[in-house]
């Protein structure tokens, strides 16, 4: 069977029952879970505390053994050691060796992947740059704050340029800059063709980065599907524009009432998300060169990630282009969100495709039919009004 056809993760009737000292069943942490993570997607595992997210992840990695059911990672059982060289794992907390410094820590994990020394040093430098700890690389990680340890955790998860990343609550303990960065990294990794499974109960994070989610409760799967399908309110339409005068609003109300016979539910200036305000403030502080002992804002995702596998180039190209189109639809709804990754992605695709415009690629054969089939056009009210508003808004976002 073609390697590309095999799902990255597939579970069938996965069940984990924890027993007590007397071998009596105590609690079913995971109950009959069937998930499938397809190649190239960002899959979110959601659920309240104790819903079985971490247990599932530990079973996928062979750290816990299922009571019942089966797991296939790239078509292999999780106990297969070879499969692990294709996986990067960030646990819910970074459990590092306190007496090693950051560089030694990354070197240790690099060695476990049998990376040659020169390669390893190169990657370590780039990863430390990425997580913004290159100046702190000589300090023992035991002295690091939780967030900094987390950054090292992320760096070690990427040291082997994994095809498949498992992130257990990746933004836990991070400051908002770190959260933003992690989310950017996740998106960018996805664009480079990586498959990502992340668990979280911070729904804002998941909403920003995931393609597909599965919601767990009490170890059972309660909902599953592409995120835009789950989130879309098919009976509403949102319009965002530059500030309008009261008279214009009145006219819009009238147009809508006359043509559609519907009322406008809410007209208000959109509230900025706190995250955006925070990011702006910190960026201003950094521009003013204010000294900090903490983590600096990191650089870009290292160039070795996802680029050293020529066989995956087409996949990267197709899935990245595919997501490009997909993203535009979302933009129409959430126009107020900051999107710093837009530019870099566009550049990446341009460099890979040369002549073809990205949109045309999405109609060709893609490995993710499910994403392709999702409807991209939204129900429209007055096409003329919305078109004119959209044009204005697009000009803004480019500027």
């Amino acid at each position, binding site marked *: 069977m073609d390697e590309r056809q095999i799902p990255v993760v597939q579970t069938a009737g996965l069940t984990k029952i*924890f027993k007590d000292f007397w071998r009596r069943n105590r609690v079913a942490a995971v109950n009959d879970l069937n998930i499938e993570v397809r190649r190239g997607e960002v899959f979110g595992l959601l659920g309240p505390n104790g819903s079985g997210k971490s247990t599932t992840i530990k079973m996928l990695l062979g750290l816990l053994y299922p009571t019942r059911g089966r797991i296939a990672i790239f078509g292999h059982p999780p106990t297969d050691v070879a499969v*692990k060289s294709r996986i990067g794992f960030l646990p819910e907390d970074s459990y590092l060796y306190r007496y090693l410094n950051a560089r030694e820590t990354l070197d240790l994990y690099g060695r476990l992947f049998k990376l040659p020394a020169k390669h390893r040093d190169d990657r370590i430098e780039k990863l430390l740059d990425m997580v913004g700890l290159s100046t702190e690389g000589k300090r023992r990680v035991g002295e690091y704050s939780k967030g900094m340890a987390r950054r090292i955790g992320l760096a070690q998860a990427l040291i082997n340029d994994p095809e498949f990343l498992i992130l257990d609550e990746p933004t836990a303990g991070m400051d908002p800059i770190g959260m933003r960065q992690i989310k950017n990294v996740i998106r960018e990794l996805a664009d480079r063709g990586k498959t990502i499974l992340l668990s979280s109960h911070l729904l804002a994070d998941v909403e920003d980065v995931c393609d597909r989610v599965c919601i767990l409760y009490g170890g059972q799967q309660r909902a599953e599907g592409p995120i835009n399908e789950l989130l879309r309110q098919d009976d509403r339409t949102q319009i965002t524009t530059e500030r309008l005068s009261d008279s214009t609003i009145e006219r819009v109300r009238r147009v809508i009432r006359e043509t559609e016979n519907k009322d406008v539910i809410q007209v208000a200036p959109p509230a900025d998300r706190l995250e955006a305000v925070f990011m702006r403030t910190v960026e201003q502080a950094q521009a003013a060169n204010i000294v900090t002992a903490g983590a600096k804002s990191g650089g870009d995702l290292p160039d070795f990630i996802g680029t050293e596998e020529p066989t995956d180039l087409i996949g990267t190209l197709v899935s990245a282009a595919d997501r490009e189109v997909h993203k535009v639809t979302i933009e129409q709804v959430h126009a107020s969100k900051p999107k710093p990754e837009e530019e870099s992605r566009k550049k990446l695709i341009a460099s890979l495709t040369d002549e073809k415009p990205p949109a045309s690629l999405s109609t060709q054969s893609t490995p993710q039919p499910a994403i392709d089939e999702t409807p991209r056009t939204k129900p429209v009210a007055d096409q003329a009004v919305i078109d004119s508003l959209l044009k204005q808004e697009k000009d803004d976002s480019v500027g």
Partner: protein
Amino acid sequence: MRIAVIFVAVLLILVVGLPYSLRHEDSVSSAVQTYLSLALRLVGFLLALLTVFLSRSVSDEIANRQILMLMAKPLPRWQFVLGKFCGIVLINMSLLAVSGVGIYAGASLLAKMTPRDELDASRLQEEVLTARHSIELRPPDFTARATEVYQERVDGGGYANVVDHDPEVEKERMSREIETRWRTVLPMQVRTFEFENVRCERSPDKTLQIKYKPTVYRYPPDEILRCLWVAGNPDKNTPVYYIDRRDMITRYHTFSVPTDAVAADHSLRIEFVNQNPYKGEPQYANTVTFLPDEPMQVLFTVGTFGGNLFRLLSLVACRLIVLTAFAIFMTCLFSYPVACLISFTFLAMATMAGYLEDAVFYFDQEGAAGVFRTVTAYVYRVAFLVVPRFSHYDGTDVLVDGRNVTLRWVLQGVGVLVMLYTTAIMAFACIMFQRREVSEASV
């Protein structure tokens, strides 16, 4: 790694402090012996403790969850277990090497002290800081003589009135009787003993030692036995040495003889003269016996003290390797305090295997009655299937006595303790660790 630093500090105290405190012993040779005995036991004990403490590295990684990240990497679990094992063995071996050098230095330092007298000086060189091979005196084969005596008795009609007798049993009994007579020396009688295969360098300047324990039938008033030893065989052209002794009875005694008393064919003739009653002293006419389980020995140098110490430490290393394997095995399965307790029990049982086996054997024979006895004996038997007998591989007493820790013994230690026990324990450890879940239940 602070624990290793502390260990080295203790070692320093041992090497420098202990010789200093032993300077006031009555003789240099016994001071060196006390030092060696104490230092070797202390190093062995400390390293065993250290091994068990260091083995917590495995359970710590599980408790601190670093294992989660490690086992998510392409690292087979058996490699993890083996790696931990090798790490501890490496630390042990380096510390053992350092201790070895330290003990050697300490002993050399002590040996430089002014000896009490000439005897003390020669004893130190010939009986302590050396490696001597020992040969036990074996009785000659008396079967032919027994057959002869039996035949004489049959011919003389000695069995005329005995209805039914087994000739073999009869000969066996006679053989024993002749042997007993050979072991026993009557007052003013002389007995010749012959040692074979005494392969030592023959020289008037080197000495060999004869070790013996005389038993008497009646305690003399001063508990002193007067005897004369004659070493050498003029028939084989060796010089003859006369050693006049006054020995405390029922104790081991040693005297030295120049090695040229040994004949060219490696035989050594020793004559024992029972001088009691000694002229002019109030003494019983006492009969002397050398009992079969306290055989006379000849001891002669076959190696150097340094080589002997090295072989002894190799045996210590073998024991530590088994202990490391067991401690790793336990911490692969249990949390630290539990694993620690089991490992120490293992260590205690292995070290006292000799005493314990004897005790259980005795208990089984005549101890408490019934089920309890059977169960206890059974439990111990099963336990000793798993627990190696460290006491069989402890050469400290041998080294302190200046006797040779043989290469054969060391190889036996390597074979049994390392090849057999360690391999088996590590295999179990790897299998069990593979089966265990490295993350605890958390929902």
